[in-house]
């Protein structure tokens, strides 16, 4: 299997580090999440939490699990992606299983971070990765 390592950079955070940004967790955007998607639930509102719960969106609390050196979890409604988080190296490995379903699959993985002095209008930045898989 080919192992592509990519770095996405569009903005600077408050420490001058490159980061990618996305304002996804606004309540106006909730209907863009589907069952099997994964979000960091640390900063979401009660309304968002309720929406995610009833729509099968998996909320994870990244702060406690980031204390571990490395951890893995199956994600997606059919558990078709295995995500391996490596906080020390700032890497997320995504292992995608073969698609025999006869239809395309898509999954959204959203992280976020808090920036008190962010130059943007919102208190935190969201990082999102969208995984798309074609079918035969």
């Amino acid at each position, binding site marked *: 299997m080919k192992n592509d390592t990519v770095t996405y950079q569009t903005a600077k955070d408050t420490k001058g580090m490159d980061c990618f940004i996305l304002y996804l967790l606004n309540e106006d*955007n909730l209907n*863009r999440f589907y069952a099997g998607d994964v979000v960091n639930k640390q900063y979401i509102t009660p309304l968002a939490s309720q929406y995610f719960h009833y729509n099968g969106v998996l909320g994870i609390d990244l702060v406690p699990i980031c204390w571990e050196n490395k951890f893995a979890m199956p994600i997606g409604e059919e558990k078709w992606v295995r995500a391996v988080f490596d906080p020390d190296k700032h890497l997320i490995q*995504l292992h995608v299983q073969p698609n025999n379903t006869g239809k*395309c699959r*898509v999954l959204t993985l959203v992280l976020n971070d808090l920036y008190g002095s962010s130059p943007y209008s919102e208190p935190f930045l969201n990082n999102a*990765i969208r*995984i798309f*898989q074609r079918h035969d």
Partner: protein
Amino acid sequence: MRANVKLWRAIGICIIGILFVGCNTNLSATKHHASGKKNKSAHIYMDGSYVMPDDTRMFKYEDVFLNFNSKGGKKTVKYNQEA
């Protein structure tokens, strides 16, 4: 006479406001387009108006796309901040 002065002053403020908003919109569009071109070579598709073939979800802002064929595989994303 005084009413005319107030009217022209209001029209002037409106024109300046429209010009200001227009300039900012152009700057934002240019920035997004530039970053999108840069990342296409890295197999990340950057286009805020991208729509999935089987999925009508569309994100308003920039997004990161990782595309896999039906055989699956492994890809690694590196991020530059504490998650």
